[in-house]
């Protein structure tokens, strides 16, 4: 009912319509429309402060929107009465700063939410967590505290922590921006693997090469608006909007200098 139809006549998995968001006087999202099909990957690109993170945070209701509607998997996120805890269990989010719980071991970080929200037993949750950790090659770190891990390892644990809830949608908020370049590779490899396994994802990123490679669709945000969206090849090789072109030129220049 609330989900808009896409070109194929099926409902989009994520449907953002006419969303406005202000922080006081500052408008951070301005009439944003975005639809994401199931099993698709959408990358959000744009300068810092363009509204990428805020958009992600609105989708799992860490932020409220002033106007507009967001529907995820048929459920209206922006409705007045919505069980946010229930909703967030099917939407995983990973942050730039990892945000692992420093007082818990890796294993406890990964099993906390499944144990407390799903009522899955400790053994069950731990077995699954170990399986996930093995997948990212960090099973031997299960009993370490996060501060003993490198940034890249911490970020992969954060991804696995979100995956342990078996989300239907993953939101990745500039998850490699805080990492040293040599640590980025492993994190991106994991995200690529997720994309290949059919995970629906919305990824805010500064990694243009990666966006071009994994995205089904790329959206360029500028001053809270989605200024241009389209096929990654088109956006990166033939952007229609002058500001998209400017932005990409600037990023390429910065990458060359780095």
């Amino acid at each position, binding site marked *: 009912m609330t989900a808009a139809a896409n070109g194929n006549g099926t409902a989009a998995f994520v449907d953002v319509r006419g969303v406005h968001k202000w922080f006081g006087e500052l408008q951070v999202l301005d009439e944003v429309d975005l639809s994401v099909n199931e099993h698709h990957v959408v990358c959000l690109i744009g300068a810092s402060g363009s509204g990428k993170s805020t958009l992600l945070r609105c989708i799992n209701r860490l932020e409220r929107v002033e106007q507009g509607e967001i529907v995820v998997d048929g459920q209206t996120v922006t409705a007045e009465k919505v069980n946010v805890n229930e909703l967030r269990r099917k939407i995983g989010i990973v942050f730039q700063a990892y945000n692992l719980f420093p007082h818990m071991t890796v294993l406890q970080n990964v099993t906390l939410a499944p144990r*407390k929200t799903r009522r899955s037993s400790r053994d069950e949750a731990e077995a699954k967590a170990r399986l996930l950790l093995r997948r990212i090659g960090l099973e031997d770190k299960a009993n370490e505290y996060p501060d003993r891990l490198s940034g890249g390892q911490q970020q992969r644990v954060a991804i696995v922590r979100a995956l342990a809830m078996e989300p239907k949608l993953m939101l990745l908020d500039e998850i490699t921006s805080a990492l040293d370049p040599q640590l980025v590779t492993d994190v991106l490899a994991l995200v690529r693997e997720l994309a290949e396994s059919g995970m629906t994802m919305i990824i805010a990123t500064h990694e243009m090469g990666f966006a071009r490679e994994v995205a089904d669709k790329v959206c360029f945000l500028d001053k809270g608006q989605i200024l241009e969206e389209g096929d990654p090849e088109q956006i990166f090789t033939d952007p229609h909007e002058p500001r998209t072109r400017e932005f990409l030129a600037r990023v390429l220049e910065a990458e060359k200098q780095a």
Partner: protein
Amino acid sequence: MHAFHQVAHAFFNPHSFTLALPDVWAGFQVNLHMMVIAEALVLVFALALAIVRGLPGPGAKPLRALAIAYTDFFRGTPIIIVAFFIGFGIPGLQLGYISSRSVVTYGVITLTLVYTAYVTEVYRAGIESVHPSQRAAARSLGLSYAQAMRYVVIPQAVRRVIPPLLNDFVGLQKDTAIVYVIGVTEAASLAQQFSTQNGDFASYVLAAVFFILITIPLARFTDHIVAQREKRERAQAF
């Protein structure tokens, strides 16, 4: 030399020490009893109050206001006046059971009321020092507000506030002597009695030594925790 002998005789007469020891020690056990119970109660009540003060939303506003009024009142009022309120006021109300407790109980209530106000602020500072992103991470995993507090915020907050909290407990331990004003027979009051009878001050010195002796381990424990944290944070910097 004469003055020295006078001081030595008035404060450090070995004979007086021996005489005063049984009484002062018996009194000090009352202090110990009060501090242990009051500290346990303060730990629980102060945490509850700190959580209430941090409750979100307009619905919790009356509760928050009540918690603020509590800390304002009991932090602002001299403990000796609170002791009078409780120790003389409650029995004066003639409310049956609650008006017929022992003075030691009223002493414990006084200490608990006052130090709960201090320690609430300590806990609150600790809770606020946990970065909001920790809460966001917990909530975005589908944990409820209460679960995020219980498993993520409070454990980190409590770890951080142990040193200032122990500092307040040193204050509480010393203030167990103040409630002698409502008639609690404890180390300081017995030392005073002995001093009056014996005409010297050795009993005060003895009482002071007892208080210092139990404060020192607490202080060293605090130092140890701070040092450990520094070591850990230095390790993290690499």
